[in-house]
Each structure stands twice: as C-alpha cells, then as structure tokens.
C-alpha cells in the first residue's frame, strides 16, 4: 500500500473513502437498485486502481471517477434494459398532507426522475446530486451545453406537470 502511494502519489484507500458516496450515489440515483449500484461503484474504483498512474491531481481524480461512474451506470442501464424501471403509474400517490421536505415527496421525485429517458435522467442526477453547472455536465456527458440546458428545462417542466396533477406544487400544496 505504501509502495503504491509512493509510486503513484495517491493513497487508493483514501481515494475510495473520499469519493465512495459520489460514485455510489450516481449509480444509485441512475439505476435505482442498491445492489447494482454497489457493483458498479466497485467496478469504477477497480478501474481507478488500474489507471492510478494516469491521475494527475486530486481534482482530476474526482472528475475521472465521476465520468467513469456516469459511463458505467449508463452501460449497466442499457445492459439491463431497466428504463423505465418505474412506470409513472407505479409511483406512490402522495399523502393528503404532503409538504415541502416530506420524505414521501423525495421518494416520489426519485421515482419520477427514474422514469426520464437515459440522457435527461443522468443530467438531472449530475445537476442535483453533484451540483454541477451545465458546462461541467456537458463535459462529463460529452454533449453540447445547449443540450444539457434543454434537458434540464424540459425535465423540470415535466416533473412540475406530473406533480401538479397530484396536487403538489407551490400553488397546490395539500393539507
């Protein structure tokens, strides 16, 4: 382990601990399956270990891990043909007194995001999980910034509409 850190300048164990939540959550929010998300996250870190010599800075390590997590999650999603895993009809009906910050609303939103097509779904995950700017998302997904912005606007409008139909929204908070 020490030799590895000396050779590459990075402590692999520390990198895993530092970035495990990011990598695991990208896979989890995209695939909505904890076991598969852990499998994907392990593969991402295994791949990092094989390519540790390419890592130049801590920021490079973070960006590298995010990009590979995105690619592996998309590949896994395609392999399993899981989209849409959760049909909108399966999403739970909100409780009568649903309010902002309600865990039920969070769960409903996760399910609604899961029904989005592959590209806008990953854009939403990177925007709201990782708090990335559209330009950073565009770089991670190798797509034009304008496409990222368009996915964000359309997805937000779609979610707003679906929530409004359930009586959830600024003008229709129930309870």
């Amino acid at each position, binding site marked *: 382990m020490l030799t590895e850190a000396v050779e590459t300048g990075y402590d*692999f*164990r520390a990198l*895993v*601990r530092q970035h*495990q*939540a*990011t990598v*695991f*959550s990208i896979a*989890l*929010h995209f695939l909505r399956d*904890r076991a598969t*998300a*852990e499998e994907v*996250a*392990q593969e991402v*870190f*295994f791949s990092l*270990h094989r390519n540790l010599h390419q890592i130049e800075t801590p920021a490079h390590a973070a960006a590298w891990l995010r990009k590979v997590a995105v690619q592996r999650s998309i590949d896994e999603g395609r392999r399993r043909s899981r989209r849409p895993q959760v049909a909108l009809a399966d999403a739970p009906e909100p409780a009568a007194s649903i309010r*902002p*910050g309600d865990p039920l*609303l*969070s*769960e409903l*939103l*996760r399910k609604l*995001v899961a029904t989005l097509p592959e590209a806008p779904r990953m854009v*939403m*995950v990177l*925007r*709201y*999980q990782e*708090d990335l700017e559209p330009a950073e998302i565009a770089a991670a997904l190798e797509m034009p910034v304008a496409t990222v912005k368009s996915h964000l606007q359309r997805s*937000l409008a779609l*979610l*707003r509409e679906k*929530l409004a139909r359930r009586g959830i*929204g*600024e003008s229709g908070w129930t309870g």
Partner: protein
Amino acid sequence: MDWLEDELRRALAREDPPDGFAERVLARRERGTSSARRWLAAAAMVVVAAGAAGAWRQHQGNQAKQEVMLALRLASAPMDRIQSEIRGITQ
C-alpha cells in the same frame, strides 16, 4: 431558489454505500492483483518453456547436421583414394 430544485437536491442527495464498501473494494483489488500476478507467472513459464523447446530443437538440428557431415567425410575418403588410383593408371 425554485422549490422544485430544492426538493430535487434533497431527493438526490449523496448517500453513503452500504457498510464495508471500501473494504470490499480493497479486497477485490487484492484478488485482482494476485490473479494478475498468477497470470503473469503462468505467461512467463510458457515463454521460458517455449524458449527451451526452441533451443533444444536447434541443438538437435546442429547435432544431426554434424553427424551427416561426418558421414559424408567418411564416405568421401575411399572415393578420393579410388579417384587418385584411377588418375595414376590413366597417366
């Protein structure tokens, strides 16, 4: 900040992987490393064996060549004697 974006940040907040995740990654790395070492050792043995077989074949070839040359030399000695005798008679 838009209420929906706030709710999305809450819903899609980072989560830690199940307990022991880092240990499982490190264990998998160890397995991968030792597996790679086994493959490398096996590949090295194959290369050495192939090299030794090649050297043995070359050695056998050289030996056979030397035997043929010796046989030719042995066979050519009486022929030379006969030729010189014929030359003596004709002169």
